[in-house]
C-alpha cells in the first residue's frame, strides 16, 4: 500500500468516527438540545468529511457534504431555526452521507442517486428557505484543497483552531492539600517562583479555614489566586508546580483580552491538572473570581500560617521573561490521549499473555510438586509473579474493552429505515451505551441486535392506528439497553408493542409440526417457540424481518459466543428480549474441581456456595433422583461425572463436595464433584476451532500440568443434560 492509499485508509477510519459523532450529535438535536455547541459539532463533522474528501477528489461525496454543510452553516449562524423538520432531514442526510462514504470506499457499489438527489433538493430548500436553489454550487468554496494540505486537515479538528495565546496573563488558582505540606513543600517558595515569571497579584482565600477548635493543622485549607501579568508560556507555569501538582488543586486559566480567546476556550480552564477528584473547578473558579471582585478581600498575611512574613498582595519586581515559543498543545483542554494501534498487535499481545498465564501456572505447580516450602524464596517470588501476571492480563484485557456505543450508534439509522418501511412511528431509547465489553464481543453484537430490533419494530410494534385504538401513543418505543450483571453483559431489547400472540404462535408451531397439537405448554414455553428452527410468524414474509433467517439463527449465533437469549412478553404491553454474553472471550475465573479421574472448571460467577453433603440432608425423589437440602430448600443433586459419562455408577454423595450453582434463569442446583482443587483464572480455548460444540462443555483450557481441562456449561448441565441423563450407554444405578 503506498503512502497515499495509507492516508486514504486513515481518512475513512476518521470518517467512521466522524459519522458516529455526527449521528450522536444529531440525536441530541432531535432530543431538543439545539444549542450552538451541538450544531457546531455537527457542522464540524460534516466539514471535516468534506475537507478530506476534497483532498482525495471524491467529488460526489464533496458535493453532497457541501450542501449539507451549507445548511449547517445557516443553522449555526442562527439565520435558520433548527426545527423538527430540519432535524429529521438532517438525520436522513447523515444516512446518505454515510452511503456516499461507503461508496467512496467501495463498500457498496453506488449510492442511491435518486435518494441522494432528493435529499440535496430538500437540504437546499431548507437552506434557501423555499427559494429556488442556486443553479450551481458557488465556486468560492473555501475548499480549494490540495493533497499537500491534507495531513493537517486530518490531524486537527478543522473547526477547533489552535487557541491563540494572546492572553496577556494567567490566573492561577492554587490550593495545597495537607500532604503537600507534609512533603515539605512551601507555598511561599512557589509564589516566589511565580513572581520570577512576571508581576503577580496574589489573593488569599481563607474562607475554608475552620475555627481554631476545629482546625487540623495537617490539612490544607487556604486557596491562593495568583494573577500573573506576563505573557509566559503555560509550560513554564506548570514547571513551577511540577513537584506538587499531585498534592494540590491547581487551575490555570488565561487572563486578560477575552476578545482574543476563542469561544470554546473562553469559559473553560485552559488546563486543569487532575489533582483532585473532589474539586469542582468551576465552583472554585467562580469563588476565586468572586474573591477578586470583592473590593475588600480577606488579606491576612501568610505569616499567620507560615513563618516567613510576606504581604498578602505581593508584587515582586517584574523579572524579564524570555518570550518562550507558544506551545499550543499545553493549553488545549485536557482530553484523553489516545493512539491508534493495529488490532493484530493487540491480539498477538493477548495471546502471548494468555500463554504467559498458563506457563506461570505450570511453573507454580512444578514448584509445589518439588516439595519446596511455601515460605521459600522461590515460592514467594512466584506468588508475586502470579500477581503481576494477573495484573498484566487485566491491563491487556482492558485494552480490548470497548463501550458498546459503537454498535448502539448504528441502530438509530436502522430504526429510522425500518420504521419508514413499515410506516410505523418509532422512538429508539438507548441506555448504558458506555458499558464496556471485549472488542470481539462488541463486534458480534451488531448482528443479533440488528435482527432483534427489526423484529421488534416489524412484529412487536403496532401501526399508529392500532396503537391509538389500544389507548397508546401513536409513537412506539423501542428500548435498547446494555448493563453488566454478574460478570456478563446483558443486552435488553424491549418494545411497548402488542406482545407475543401466543395463540397464533402455538397454532403456527402446530401447523409446522414443531409441537404436538395437544402439547401442554406454559406461556414461557410458547414464547420460546419463536426460537425454534423453521419458525417464522410473519404471515407475509416481509422485506424487513423475513430474510430467511429466523430467531433460531440469532439464538445459535449467541450460543456460539457462550451467550444466552430469553424472551418475556406481556400481551398488549410488549416484549423484552434479553441477551446475555460473557464480558470477554479470553479469560474466566473458575473453580478447579475433580470429577472421577478428570479435572473440570466450573465458572466462578455461576457458583453460589460449596458444601459437604451430609447424609441427613440427602433425599431421593421417587426413590431415584437425589436432592439435597440447602437452606431449607431442596435442590437437585447432579453427579457431574456420571452425566458426563466419566463414571458408570453414581458416587456416594457424602464422599464428595456439592457446589451450589445458579443458572442464568435463576434456577439453582447442586453439582456433585469428588473434590475442589482450587480457584484459578483460566484462559478460554474454544473447542469449536478444531472440533465442535460439546454438550455440557462451554470451552476448554490448559492447566498447569499442560493438560486440557474442560470448562463446564453449568446452564446446560442443570437444565438440559439432567433430563436427558438416561442413555443406553450410561444407566443410572439399578
Amino acid at each position, binding site marked *: 500500500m503506498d503512502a497515499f492509499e495509507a492516508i486514504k485508509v486513515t481518512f475513512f477510519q476518521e470518517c467512521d468516527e466522524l459519522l458516529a459523532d455526527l449521528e450522536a450529535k444529531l440525536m441530541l438535536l432531535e432530543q431538543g438540545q439545539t444549542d450552538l455547541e451541538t450544531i457546531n459539532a455537527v457542522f464540524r463533522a460534516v466539514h471535516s468529511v468534506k475537507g478530506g474528501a476534497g483532498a482525495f477528489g471524491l467529488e460526489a461525496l464533496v458535493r453532497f457534504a457541501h450542501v449539507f454543510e451549507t445548511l449547517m452553516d445557516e443553522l449555526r449562524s442562527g439565520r435558520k431555526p433548527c426545527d423538527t423538520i430540519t432535524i429529521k432531514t438532517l438525520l436522513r442526510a447523515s444516512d446518505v452521507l454515510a452511503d456516499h462514504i461507503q461508496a467512496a470506499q467501495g463498500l457498496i457499489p453506488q449510492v442511491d442517486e435518486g435518494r441522494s438527489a432528493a435529499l440535496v433538493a430538500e437540504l437546499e430548500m431548507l437552506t434557501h428557505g423555499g427559494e429556488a436553489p442556486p443553479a450551481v454550487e458557488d465556486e468560492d468554496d473555501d475548499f480549494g484543497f490540495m493533497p499537500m494540505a491534507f495531513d493537517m486537515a486530518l490531524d486537527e479538528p478543522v473547526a477547533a483552531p489552535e487557541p491563540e495565546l494572546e492572553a496577556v496573563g494567567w490566573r492561577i488558582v492554587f490550593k495545597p492539600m495537607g500532604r503537600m505540606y507534609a512533603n515539605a513543600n512551601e507555598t511561599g517558595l512557589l509564589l516566589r517562583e511565580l513572581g520570577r515569571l512576571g508581576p503577580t497579584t496574589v489573593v488569599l482565600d481563607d474562607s475554608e479555614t475552620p475555627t481554631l477548635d476545629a482546625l487540623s493543622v495537617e490539612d490544607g485549607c487556604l486557596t491562593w489566586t495568583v494573577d500573573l501579568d506576563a505573557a509566559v508560556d503555560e509550560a513554564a507555569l506548570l514547571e513551577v508546580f511540577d513537584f506538587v501538582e499531585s498534592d494540590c488543586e491547581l487551575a490555570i486559566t488565561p487572563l486578560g483580552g477575552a476578545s482574543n480567546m476563542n469561544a470554546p476556550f473562553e469559559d473553560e480552564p485552559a488546563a486543569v491538572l487532575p489533582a483532585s477528584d473532589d474539586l469542582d473547578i468551576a465552583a472554585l473558579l467562580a469563588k476565586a473570581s468572586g474573591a477578586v471582585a470583592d473590593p475588600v478581600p480577606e488579606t491576612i498575611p501568610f505569616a499567620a500560617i507560615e513563618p516567613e512574613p510576606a504581604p498578602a498582595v505581593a508584587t515582586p519586581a517584574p523579572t524579564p521573561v524570555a518570550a518562550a515559543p507558544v506551545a499550543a498543545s499545553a493549553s488545549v483542554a485536557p482530553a484523553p490521549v489516545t493512539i491508534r494501534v493495529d488490532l493484530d498487535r493487540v491480539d498477538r499481545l493477548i495471546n502471548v499473555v*494468555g*500463554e504467559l498465564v*498458563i506457563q506461570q501456572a505450570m511453573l507454580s505447580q512444578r514448584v509445589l510438586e518439588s516439595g519446596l516450602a511455601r515460605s521459600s524464596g522461590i515460592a514467594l517470588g512466584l506468588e508475586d509473579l502470579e500477581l503481576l501476571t494477573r495484573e498484566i492480563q487485566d491491563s491487556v484485557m482492558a485494552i480490548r474493552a470497548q463501550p458498546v456505543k459503537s454498535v448502539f450508534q448504528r441502530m438509530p439509522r436502522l430504526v429510522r429505515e425500518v420504521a419508514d418501511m413499515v410506516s410505523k412511528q418509532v422512538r429508539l431509547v438507548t441506555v448504558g451505551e458506555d458499558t464496556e465489553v471485549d472488542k470481539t464481543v462488541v463486534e458480534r453484537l451488531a448482528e443479533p441486535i440488528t435482527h432483534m430490533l427489526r423484529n421488534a419494530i416489524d412484529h412487536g410494534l403496532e401501526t399508529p392506528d392500532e396503537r391509538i385504538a389500544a389507548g397508546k401513543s401513536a409513537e412506539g418505543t423501542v428500548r435498547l439497553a446494555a448493563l453488566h450483571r454478574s460478570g456478563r453483559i446483558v443486552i435488553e431489547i424491549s418494545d411497548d408493542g402488542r406482545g407475543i400472540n401466543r395463540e397464533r404462535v402455538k397454532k403456527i408451531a402446530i401447523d409446522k409440526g414443531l409441537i404436538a397439537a395437544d402439547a401442554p405448554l406454559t406461556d414461557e414455553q410458547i414464547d420460546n417457540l419463536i426460537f425454534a428452527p423453521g419458525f417464522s410468524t410473519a404471515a407475509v414474509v416481509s422485506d424487513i424481518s423475513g430474510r430467511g433467517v429466523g430467531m433460531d439463527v440469532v439464538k445459535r449465533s449467541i450460543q456460539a459466543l457462550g451467550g444466552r437469549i430469553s424472551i418475556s412478553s406481556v400481551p398488549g404491553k410488549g416484549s423484552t428480549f434479553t441477551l446475555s454474553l460473557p464480558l470477554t472471550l479470553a479469560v474466566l475465573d473458575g473453580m478447579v474441581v475433580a470429577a472421577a479421574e*478428570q479435572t473440570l472448571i466450573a465458572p466462578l460467577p455461576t457458583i453460589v456456595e460449596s458444601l459437604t453433603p451430609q447424609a441427613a440432608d440427602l433425599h431421593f425423589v421417587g426413590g431415584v433422583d437425589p436432592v439435597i437440602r440447602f437452606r431449607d430448600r431442596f435442590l437437585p443433586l447432579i453427579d457431574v461425572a456420571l*452425566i*458426563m*459419562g*466419566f463414571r458408570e455408577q453414581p458416587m456416594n454423595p457424602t464422599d464428595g463436595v456439592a457446589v451450589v450453582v445458579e443458572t442464568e434463569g435463576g434456577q439453582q442446583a447442586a453439582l456433585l464433584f469428588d473434590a475442589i482443587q482450587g480457584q484459578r483464572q483460566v484462559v478460554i*480455548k*474454544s*473447542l469449536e*476451532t*478444531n*472440533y*465442535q460444540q*460439546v*454438550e*455440557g*462443555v462451554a470451552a*476448554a483450557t*490448559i492447566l498447569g500440568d*499442560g*493438560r*486440557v*481441562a*474442560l470448562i463446564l456449561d453449568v446452564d446446560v448441565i442443570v437444565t438440559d443434560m439432567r433430563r436427558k441423563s438416561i442413555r443406553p450407554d450410561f444407566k443410572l444405578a439399578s
Partner: protein
Amino acid sequence: MTEAKDPQRELIAFRIGSQEFCVDIMSVREIRGWTPATPLPRSPGYMKGVINLRGTVLPIIDLGARFGLTTSEPTARHVIMVAHIGGRMVGLLVDAVSDILQMSEASVQPTPDVASDQVKTFVKGIFSIDGRMISLIELDYILPQIEAEAA
C-alpha cells in the same frame, strides 16, 4: 509415464493393526507420540478426547475406531499424526507411521467390494507396493461426518 501427464503424489503410510493406510503428506503437519487425552463427554467412541498442542486444543480421533476396526488402548508407542483438514487441526491416532511413498495417480485402483462399508467410506482407492496392500485415505471425509453423527 511422465510427470506432466501423471503427477506424482507423496504419501505418508501408517499402520493400524495389521493394515496399512496412507494419506497425502501435504495434509500432515507433524507426528508426535501419544499423550493421554482429556475425554470429551457424550462423544462418539472414536473421539479420544483433546490434548494440548503448544496452546492449541487438539481433538484426537482414533482412526482405527473411526474405520470400524478393533483397537486397543493407546500406549506410548502409538503416534498422533497432526493433520490439517478443512481449516481445522486434528490429531489422528494410529499404531505407527511406516513409510513415505511416491505414488502416481494412475496406480491407484478402486476399492474392491470386499472391504467393510465403514472402511469404504474413507478409502479412496488402494494400491500395492512390494506386495503390500495400502489403502489411500481421503481425510476430507472424516470431519463432516463427525458433525453429522454427533449433532
